[in-house]
C-alpha cells in the first residue's frame, strides 16, 4: 500500500513537471503580451518594461529562470496586477474558491446521488422521469442562464438572499452561487449514478439476493450502491478539482473574488506567472482528486484489490 502511494506521488511530481513545461511554452506562444493594452503604451516604454521583467530574453532562458525560482518556492510577480506576488493573489483568492467549491460539492453530492439512486430504483416510473427531467434541466440550463434567474428571483425580487457578493462568514451569501455551481455536476452525477445502478441491479448476485427474499431497499443500499457508484466516482474526481479551483462564470454573475476571474484575466493579458501558478495548483488538485477517487473505487470494488 505504502509503495503504491509513493509510486503515485512520484508520478504526480512527473505530471507537474510536464505540466509546468508545456504550460510555460504554450503561454509564451500566445499572440499578445502583458503590456499590450487597449490604450497603447509608447513602444520605447513598452520595450523598457518588458526588459524590466526579463521578457526580452530568449524563452528558454526565461523558462529555466522560472523553473529555478519555482524550485525555491518563488512563484514570481503578476504582470497584470503589477508588483503583486502571485502567491499573495492566490492566497487571497483560493480560500474563497475552496469554500464555494465545497459548498457546491455538498449540493451536487446531496442532490445528484440520491436522485440517481431513486430513479434507478423506480426505473421507468413517473418518479424516474421526474428525477431525470430535473437532472436534464440542470444540464440544459447552463450556469449563465440559471445564475441570473436565481439572482433575479431570490436576490432582486424576493430580497431573500444577496444577489451578489461573497461574505466568508455569512452562509446566506453562499447559497445561490453554490446551487448555480453545483447544479450541473449534480445533474451529471444523478445520470451516471442511475446508469451505474441499473448495470449493477441486473447482475447475477442481485437476482440471487432477490430470489432469497432480501428486501428491495436492502439490496439497493447494501449491495448495489457500491458497484453502482463506480462511474459517478470516476467522474467526481476531476469535477471536484474543477469546482474548487474557481469558475469564472459563477464569479462574474455573483461577483465572487475567486481564482476563476484571476485566471481568465491572466489569460486575457498573457500574465504568465499567474497562469502558471493557477495551472500548477489545479494540476495538484487533479492529481490528488484522481488519487483519492481511485482509492474510493478500490474500496467500492473489492475485486480491484487483488492487484
Amino acid at each position, binding site marked *: 500500500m505504502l509503495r503504491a502511494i509513493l509510486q503515485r506521488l512520484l508520478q504526480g511530481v512527473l505530471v507537474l513537471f510536464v505540466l509546468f513545461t508545456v504550460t510555460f511554452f504554450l503561454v509564451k506562444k500566445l499572440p499578445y503580451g502583458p503590456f*499590450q493594452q487597449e490604450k497603447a503604451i509608447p513602444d520605447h516604454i513598452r520595450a523598457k518594461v518588458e526588459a524590466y521583467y526579463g521578457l526580452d530574453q530568449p524563452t528558454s532562458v526565461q523558462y529555466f529562470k522560472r523553473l529555478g525560482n519555482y524550485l525555491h518556492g518563488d512563484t514570481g510577480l503578476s504582470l497584470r496586477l503589477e508588483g503583486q506576488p502571485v502567491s499573495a493573489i492566490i492566497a487571497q*483568492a483560493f480560500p474563497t474558491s475552496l469554500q464555494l467549491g465545497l459548498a457546491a460539492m455538498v449540493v451536487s453530492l446531496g442532490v445528484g446521488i440520491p436522485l440517481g439512486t431513486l430513479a434507478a430504483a423506480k426505473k421507468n416510473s413517473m418518479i424516474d422521469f421526474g428525477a431525470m427531467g430535473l437532472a436534464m434541466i440542470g444540464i440544459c440550463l447552463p450556469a449563465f442562464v440559471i445564475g441570473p434567474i436565481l439572482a433575479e428571483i431570490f436576490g432582486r425580487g424576493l430580497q431573500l438572499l444577496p*444577489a*451578489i457578493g461573497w461574505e466568508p462568514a455569512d452562509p446566506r451569501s453562499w447559497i445561490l452561487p453554490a446551487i448555480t455551481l453545483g447544479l450541473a455536476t449534480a445533474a451529471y452525477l444523478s445520470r451516471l449514478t442511475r446508469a451505474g445502478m441499473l448495470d449493477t441491479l441486473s447482475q447475477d448476485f442481485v437476482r440471487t439476493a432477490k430470489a432469497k427474499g432480501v428486501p428491495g431497499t436492502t439490496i439497493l443500499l447494501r449491495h448495489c450502491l457500491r458497484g453502482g457508484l463506480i462511474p459517478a466516482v470516476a467522474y467526481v474526481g476531476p469535477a471536484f478539482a474543477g469546482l474548487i479551483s474557481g469558475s469564472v462564470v459563477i464569479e462574474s454573475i455573483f461577483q*465572487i473574488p475567486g481564482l476563476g476571474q484571476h485566471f481568465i484575466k491572466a489569460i486575457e493579458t498573457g500574465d504568465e506567472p499567474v497562469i502558471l501558478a493557477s495551472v500548477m495548483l489545479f494540476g495538484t488538485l487533479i492529481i490528488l482528486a484522481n488519487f483519492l477517487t481511485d482509492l474510493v473505487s478500490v474500496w467500492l470494488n473489492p475485486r480491484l484489490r487483488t492487484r
Partner: protein
Amino acid sequence: MPRRFLFLAAAALALVSCSRETQVERANREGILILGNSGEPKSLDPQLVTGVIESKIINSLMEGLVADDPENDDGLPPGAAASWEHNDDLTEWTFHLRPEGRWSDGVPLTASDYVFSFHRMLHPDLIAPYVEMLYFIENAEAFNKGEISDFSKVGVWADDDLTLRFKLREPVPFLPSLTRHYTWFAVPRHVILQHGKMTDRFTDWSEPPNMVGNGPFRLKSWKFHDSIEVEKNPHYWGADQVALNGIRFLPIENPYTEARAFFSGQLHSSYTLPPDLIDSVRKKSPKYLRQEPYVGTVFVRLNTTRKGLDDPRVRRALGLAIDRAALTEYVLEGYFPATSLTPKMGQYEPDPVLRFDPEEARRLLAEAGYPDGKGFPRFSVLISRPAARASTEALQAMWREHLNIIVDIQNKDWGSYISAQQSLDFDIASAGWIGDYLDPTTFLNLWTQGNGNNNTGWSNPEFENLLDQAAHESDAAQRLEILRKAESVVMAEQPILPVAYYSRNYLLRPEVKGWHPLLLDNHPFKTLRLDP
C-alpha cells in the same frame, strides 16, 4: 394544517427579509457611498497606471493642484494650490500651494514634493507608462529619454515650500485642467523612500495600510475582485466640508451583475447600464436612470494599408452608408449619433460633416472602381467584447443593404484583438476612445504618425502641420479654430468612421446628493452627500 404552516413559514420569511436592511440602507446610516467601478485596478500608484478604473479611486485619495468642480467641467476650483498665474504666452506658470496642505499622515505637503514627483515619474528607470502626459514640461521628454541627466534643467522648480514654477515647451492654455489628471499629482516622497528607492516600481507604498495621499479620503482596505474601501482623511485641508465617511468601490465587471446589485440594494451607483436594459429601467424605475453626454466616441477603425481601404473614396462611402440615427435609436440605445470625430467639449465644436447618404455612398464606391459593390474585397470586421457584436452586425447589414458589399465579423479574444490592431494585422475594427482631458487634442493627437493608438496606417502632413501650429498658438480661440481645421482634414479622409458619441448610461440612487452630469465623469467625492 399544512396550509397554515406554509402561511406561517411565508410570514416568518417575510419578516426576516423585512427586518434585514439592505447594504445601501446600512451604508446610508454609516455615511458610506458604494460605487460600481467596473474592474480591478492594476495599481494605485498614480505614476504607474493608465486607466479610468484606477483614476476613480486615485481621485478619492489624492488631489491635483487644481480640483474638479462638482457641477462644471470647465470649472477650476483650487485644490492643493490656492492660486496660480501665468505669463502672457502661457509658457510659464506659477502655482501657490495652500499653507495648510497636509499628507494624510499629517506631514506638510510642499512644492519640493511636487518636484520629487515629476522627477520620479520622468526618471527613465521608473518606466512610467503614461509619462507622455508630462512632456508638456520643458525638457521633460529629453530627460525621460535619457538625453539629459540633470533634472534641474527640466522645467519644474520649487522656489520655496509653497511656490511651484513650471516652464512649458509650448503654450498650454489648458494646463490648470491638465493638473487635475492623476499623472500630475504629487506622490509622498517620505513614504515612497521608506519602501524602496525613488525609481522602484510597485513597492508596498501604494497599498494599505502604507499609502498616503493628499486627498479627502485615505486607503483603508483592498481585496482583489471584491472591494476597495477608503475612509475620510482627517488631515485633508477641507476635511470639515467632506460629508461622506467613506467610499466602497466594487470592481463589478459584468454590467448585468452590476444592475442586479443596484436593484437589490447593494450599490448607490452603477458604473454603467447595458443598452438593452435602458428601456425597461426607463419604464419601471425611471428615478434611477441617468443618461448624460460623455467625451467618448465609438468608431470603426480602417486599416488604410489594405488594398481597397487605401482609397479615401471607399472609406467615405463606407461612412456614408452608416445610418447613425437608426443605430443609436435601436442598437446603441442612449448613445448619440456622431457628427464628427470629437464630441462637443467646452468651446470646441467640430463641423457636423457626417451624414447618412446611401446615394452618394454608392456613387463614391462606383467612382473608386466598385460599381454596385462589384469586385469589392471581402473584409473582416474585428470585434472582441460581446457588447460590440450587435452594433457590428447592424453595420454589416447596412453595408450589405446600401453598398451591396459583404463583410465578415471576426470575433477575437481581447488580447489578440488589441495585438492585431497594434500590428496592423486587421482590415476593419470596432473601437472606441474616451478623452483624458477636456481638449480636442485628446482625440486629434491619436491620428498623428507613430502615435501608438493610431493603428490605421494613416498619416497626413497637412494634419500634422495644423496640430503643430495649434500647439504654438497662444490665443485660445484661434487655437481651437486651427484644431477644427485639423479635424476636418481627418474627416475628409476618414481613416476611421465615427459611429456614435458615448453617453454615460448608469443608475444612481436619489439619496446621493451633489452629483451633477459631467463630461469627464470626474465627480469630486468631497462634495457628495447621502441624504436618504
